[in-house]
């Protein structure tokens, strides 16, 4: 059976606290922290982007997979912050890890679910027998306009997964996607920051689609919430994944392992895939995992994984995601953040 044979995550070391952002805008930090369930978020350094973070995460995935990168037949990158509007991210990534030239590549974009789209297509390529191994990455240096509620959550990070039929650490038992035309969040061409429809991004958007995908895949698989050891939802803030989990009948314990957002922020295309890496870091053979992404516009991809005995051999071959999140942190002030994120530019 096809599945994940190697995985890895990457988080930049810079962090900014909610208080630091709230101070600039005169906002009520304790209320924001409670309301959003957020404490701090990751910030990419000035020399980092979706491609550099994808390379870092992919290298870890390769170490865990233990395969020759030349056997990778597809490199897919899902992001809404591809550094180039025209020029693929996957070419740089494939070159950097030594997967060229016998490789297919594509860039995916579907708001915050581009990462799971890349995973889905990679899986299908492997299952069809068209390729032996495929690499799928979800990565973003998310954009939030200064002073917008999004600025407290938009973060940077990447998760990479190699799919194959041998050396599998997490078999894919089932997939399901749920999609409608729901305009809750968008960024038009040439615009730097996304726009969103406020509270409309909640119930009719995030909650409806995640519930639809989760209920759909459980029905398809004949499973109940209690049949899963872990569940990972897209995590735009700390509250939404807990609320949707409660609505679906999952316990906080099932959600908590993969809920990175309070200290990480929303890494958009990297969000739920990074949560999955944190779960795989601690999962035991036989554990069943549900993953449900969400992308505005709007849709959700759902996957059911069963962890194999090989997990114990690979998990320590690269740094665990929680260690990336909790270690090597450098806190920056808003001025540094503004400079690193290109919100202010040095005069020529």
């Amino acid at each position, binding site marked *: 059976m096809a599945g994940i044979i190697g995985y890895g995550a990457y988080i930049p070391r810079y962090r900014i606290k909610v208080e630091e952002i709230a101070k600039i805008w005169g906002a*009520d930090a304790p*209320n924001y922290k409670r*309301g959003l369930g957020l404490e701090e978020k990751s910030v990419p350094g000035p020399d980092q982007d979706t491609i550099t973070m994808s390379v870092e995460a992919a290298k870890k995935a390769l170490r865990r997979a233990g395969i020759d990168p030349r056997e990778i037949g597809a490199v897919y990158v899902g992001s809404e912050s591809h550094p180039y509007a025209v020029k693929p991210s996957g070419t740089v990534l494939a070159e950097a890890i030594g997967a060229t030239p016998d490789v297919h590549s594509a860039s995916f974009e579907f708001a915050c679910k581009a990462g799971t789209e890349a995973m889905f297509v990679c899986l299908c390529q492997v299952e069809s027998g068209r390729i032996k191994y495929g690499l799928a990455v979800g990565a973003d240096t998310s954009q939030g306009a200064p002073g917008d509620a999004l600025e407290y959550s938009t973060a940077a990070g990447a998760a990479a997964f190699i799919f194959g039929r041998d050396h599998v650490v997490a078999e894919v038992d089932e997939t399901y996607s749920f999609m409608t035309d729901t305009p809750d969040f968008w960024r038009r061409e040439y615009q730097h920051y996304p726009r969103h*429809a*406020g*509270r*409309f991004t909640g*119930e*009719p958007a995030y909650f409806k689609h995640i519930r639809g995908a989760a209920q759909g895949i459980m029905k398809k698989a004949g499973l109940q919430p209690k049949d899963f050891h872990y569940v990972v939802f897209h995590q735009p803030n700390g509250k939404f994944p807990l609320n949707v989990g409660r609505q679906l009948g999952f316990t906080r314990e099932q959600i908590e392992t993969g809920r990175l957002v309070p200290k990480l922020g929303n890494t958009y295309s990297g969000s739920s895939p990074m949560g999955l890496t944190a779960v795989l870091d601690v999962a035991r053979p036989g554990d069943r995992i549900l993953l449900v992404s969400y992308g505005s516009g709007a849709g959700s991809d759902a996957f059911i994984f069963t962890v194999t005995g090989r997990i114990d051999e690979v998990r320590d071959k690269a740094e665990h995601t929680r260690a990336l999140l909790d270690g090597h942190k450098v806190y920056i002030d808003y001025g540094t953040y503004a400079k690193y994120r290109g919100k202010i530019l040095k005069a020529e």
Partner: protein
Amino acid sequence: MRDVAVLGVGLNSKWGELWEMSLRDIFVEAALNALDDAGVDRVDSIVVGCMTSGLFVGQEHLGSLMSDYLGMNPAAATRVESACASGGAAFRQGFLEVASGAADIVLVGGVEKMTDVGGDEATYALSAASDMEYEAYHGITFPGLYALIARAHMHRFGTTREQLAHVAVKNHRHGARNPAAQYPYEITVEDVLASVMVADPLRVLDCSPITDGAAAAVLCPVETARKLSKKPVVKVLASAQASSTIALHSRKDLTWFESTAEAAQKAYRMAGKRPEDIDVAEVHDCFTIAEIVVLEALGLVERGKGGQAAESGMTALGGKIPVNTSGGLKSKGHPVGATGVAQVVEIARQLRGESGARQVEGARVGLTQNMGGTGGSSVVHIFETV
């Protein structure tokens, strides 16, 4: 003038963020519910109360739109606007049409679809109820204006921050018994005091919400109602309206709504009633401080004692004068143009004994008070079962 009765009333089934419904859907549902309740299928005239559908959804000409989508063409249909008192003013126009003999059966509706825009746009649309040139353009919003009223009331009468909270707590306790309410659950004083600050001293739980909703009532002569209805006949004893300065800074007294006091005096005279005759009231609690000042201006509570009234339970269900049994604007929701008509819906049901878990036992005389802006306009109606 002919005696006028409320023959039927209705709301759309649930107020709140109605993402799947448009302005016309909400209105038509409420209107059909009222027509069903009244047992009539044709009307002579339609009056629609709506504050600013133009700014919220880009649609004007609501009379024609609603007549068309209700299948009531060629009935006369007109939109009435008096900011947040649009619903009350529309009801008054319907009353005048029937009382004057110009029409026999009139449908009065109120509607607002507020969630198609974001928070900033909604704040701007609502600020159009203030004096744009002298208030809104200088940056003050409605929470800011009502915060000034609250500060003045606290300073002059010793009203406390906790007493403001008690108004919201009481209205949520009532709204928890109203299945149509946007927020049908209870809150505590501690919840209010810990909620996000909006405009000191008002916190978010002192403020009525942004709501999609509609309400409707069918009016006819009392004689017609006696023939058509098997239910207790709810007579409109009084309909009164008054105006005051549109800008808060032009008032002689920040702690008083002159338009409410004036409309109330006219209404009590017309009805032949006194404040102590009122069994149940629905008033305009757009902010907690508003209910306090309004109850004083209506003479239902002694001047300066509005805060104590909420704290002591005097205005709660079971108290001396239950106020906002529907949950009020705070818990039931505040789809601006619908509010004044929805107050009539609640009072008509109370007087017919149909209010279930929130019924005021033996209620015979009820009052509604609907207010525009910071009291630039007020409409008061008094009802009695006959």
